[in-house]
């Protein structure tokens, strides 16, 4: 997918003015947030599980080379074909070749964020394959030619009336007078249409929530069962998974599974969690005849051992964006690439480079909710600050920003001037605000004052108040 991360300010402004989008986004903070809080309430060990989750991922990353080769050994022994892809285009070529050798025409897909990352659909479609997303949200955005706006709820930016219009447009062979006003009617129609695709698909592609070194298994988690129909009905099952998906054992996967759905949707566990090991066995009556696993790097290995290693713990639950006030305001598309929200603000610069994504680490108030809810305790605000520093150090900030910061730094290094300037500034602001005590407009801060007034200072600077307070403390201590 072509990133539009450079246009973040414009994207965000457009999102704020988009009434349809704002209507859809209003549901995010109430639904996901409350449900997660309830699930956490029901499980007293939840906070300790977050520590356990963090530790499992840290341990695995420290031994990543070994766990990947152990995974490969056991997967291969169970009949899997394992491939290693360094880049997005390597992964796309490998999967296209698998589809070709299978003589595939129709390819069904379970939801996979890294398939979005590598642009897999476009690559396969360019070779004439009919690629069908089967997760309902993904199916809807595929019909619209859009990308996901949320990593677990790809169509969260849409209202049901928009979905109805798309279904009427695309499912043109169905009765015109049919009712499609309720979500249940829309779901029933998608079920009917996609069932035919499942039954005719030659290759089924899924992602993986985990790869298990102990057993050579891949794991997917869904509520719809679409991933399972995808991987059980086609004659070939292809899994695409990034290197950070491997975990040591079934026990470790179990711990992370306890965290995943509770953090994501507030469910105790997702409806379907599927462990796949090898292809169908000789006397199995169903299941795929071949099972391929593509292990993708695409820049992740460079994060190992770097200041950003901790982002590789992510299990893609979406809790950080569900709890982010910036995400609530602008939705996922404004971020301009596959991963929105706080995790995107850290991951996107890590994978695309800070040059074209320098706005993203600033798309945060650093309120800290994302870190507080992260199931593997990724210090997202710290990592965003780190990217801000790197953007500055590497000259990837605007001239105005750099000038302002340099001017402030110069002033801050000259305490007398600083005190004088702030005394003057404060007095002036008080004067300008008059009797209201509020400023309706301020030079260089129009972005702030356009939407609200700025409370005016009362006449003394912070340093003056501080000094006065210290003197009072001193007086009190002297008296006692």
């Amino acid at each position, binding site marked *: 997918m072509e990133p539009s991360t450079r246009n973040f300010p414009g994207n965000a402004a457009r999102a704020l003015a988009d009434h349809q989008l704002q209507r859809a986004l209003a*549901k995010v903070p109430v*639904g996901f947030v409350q449900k997660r809080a309830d699930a956490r309430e029901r499980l*007293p060990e939840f906070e300790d*599980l977050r520590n356990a989750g963090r530790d499992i991922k840290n*341990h695995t990353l420290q031994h*990543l*080379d*070994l766990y*990947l080769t152990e995974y490969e050994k056991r997967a291969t022994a169970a009949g899997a074909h394992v491939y*290693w892809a360094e880049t997005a285009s*390597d992964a796309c*070529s490998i999967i296209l*070749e698998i589809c070709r*050798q*299978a*003589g595939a025409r129709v390819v069904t897909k379970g939801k996979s964020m890294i398939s979005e990352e590598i642009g897999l659909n476009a690559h396969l479609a360019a070779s004439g394959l009919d690629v069908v997303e089967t997760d309902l949200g993904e199916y*809807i955005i595929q019909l619209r030619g859009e990308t996901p706006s949320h990593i677990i709820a790809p169509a969260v930016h*849409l*209202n*049901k009336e928009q979905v109805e219009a798309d279904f009427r447009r695309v499912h043109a062979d169905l009765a015109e007078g049919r009712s499609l006003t309720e*979500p*249940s009617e829309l*779901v029933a129609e998608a*079920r009917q249409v996609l*069932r035919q695709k499942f*039954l005719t698909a030659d290759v089924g592609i899924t992602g993986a929530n985990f790869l298990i070194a*102990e057993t050579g*298994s891949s794991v997917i988690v869904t*509520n*719809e*069962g*679409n991933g*399972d129909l995808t*991987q*059980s009905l086609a*004659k*070939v099952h292809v899994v695409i998974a990034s290197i950070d998906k491997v975990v040591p*054992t079934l*026990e470790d996967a*179990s711990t992370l599974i*306890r965290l995943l759905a509770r953090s994501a*949707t507030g*469910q*105790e566990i997702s*409806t*379907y*969690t*599927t*462990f796949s*090991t090898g*292809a*169908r*066995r000789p006397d*199995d*009556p169903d*299941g795929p*005849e071949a099972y391929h696993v593509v292990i993708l790097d695409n820049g992740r290995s*460079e994060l*190992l*051992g770097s200041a950003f290693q901790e982002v590789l713990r992510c299990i893609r639950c979406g809790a950080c964006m569900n709890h982010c006030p910036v995400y609530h305001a602008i939705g996922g598309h404004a971020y301009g690439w596959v991963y929105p929200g706080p995790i995107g603000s850290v991951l996107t610069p890590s994978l695309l480079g800070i040059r074209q994504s320098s706005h993203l680490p600033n798309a945060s108030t650093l309120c800290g909710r994302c870190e507080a809810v992260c199931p593997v305790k990724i210090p997202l605000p710290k990592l965003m600050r780190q990217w801000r520093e790197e953007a500055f150090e590497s000259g990837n900030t605007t001239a105005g920003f750099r000038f302002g910061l340099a001017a402030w730094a110069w002033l801050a290094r000259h305490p007398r001037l600083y005190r004088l300037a702030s005394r003057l500034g404060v007095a002036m602001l008080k004067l300008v605000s008059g009797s209201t005590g509020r400023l309706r407009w301020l030079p260089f801060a129009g972005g702030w004052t356009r939407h609200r007034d700025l409370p005016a200072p009362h006449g003394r600077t912070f340093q003056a108040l501080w000094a006065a307070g210290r003197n009072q403390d001193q007086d009190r201590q002297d008296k006692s």
Partner: protein
Amino acid sequence: MRKARFKRPDPPPQTGSRARERLLDKIRTALGGATVDELRSAVVKDRLRLHPANLVPARANLPGEQLIALFRQMLESQAATVIEVETPRDVPAAVADYLRRSNLPARVRMGQDALLRRMPWQQESAVECLDGAAEAGDAVGISHATAAAAETGTLFLASGKDNPVTLNFLPDTHIVVVEQSKIAGSYEAVWGRVRASVGNGPLPRTINLISGPSRTADIEQTIVMGAHGPRSLAVVIIRQK
């Protein structure tokens, strides 16, 4: 039936071991020049061999009846129907009754599972049994769970000729039979049993953890049942010890 339709595809071309080696080298370099030394290997081998449990929630350790009650309550809170019977002999009548109440045809598809096959479907009910993997248009599939974890009301189903995987997803209604003795507290306890049953061999092609009927909330976060998989899930617990 699917078996005959496909021939095994040729193994696709390898991208060569060069990509593999380069990727592993990058990882080792990034980890500070880590080598495959004995200490690191031993740590990994031990973890895989001993597979230590991490934190297991206390609710998984509830005693006897309370654990079954938790299992039941979890499944029901995830929109499954739970039916209890005393012995395997009682299952067909209970299934027939459920189908009647749900206005479903008295026809179920099942695999070769010995427990299911021994049940008196003809004598105790008028339920017709179809054989093998699920086909498009099947209304009801019935499976025998290999185990269950009460902590989240989760059934574990192993694929194979006994319980074909498509039965879990294609039919509109899925019925799963599980003996009370197979209901453990935690996922870890179930994995212990699974390991014991496969020995040194690989896991079955799929192990499906199922905790309710298929659902989606992709349209305006409204939960709708029957997204792609079964619209309803009924769990029959055989209470006989």
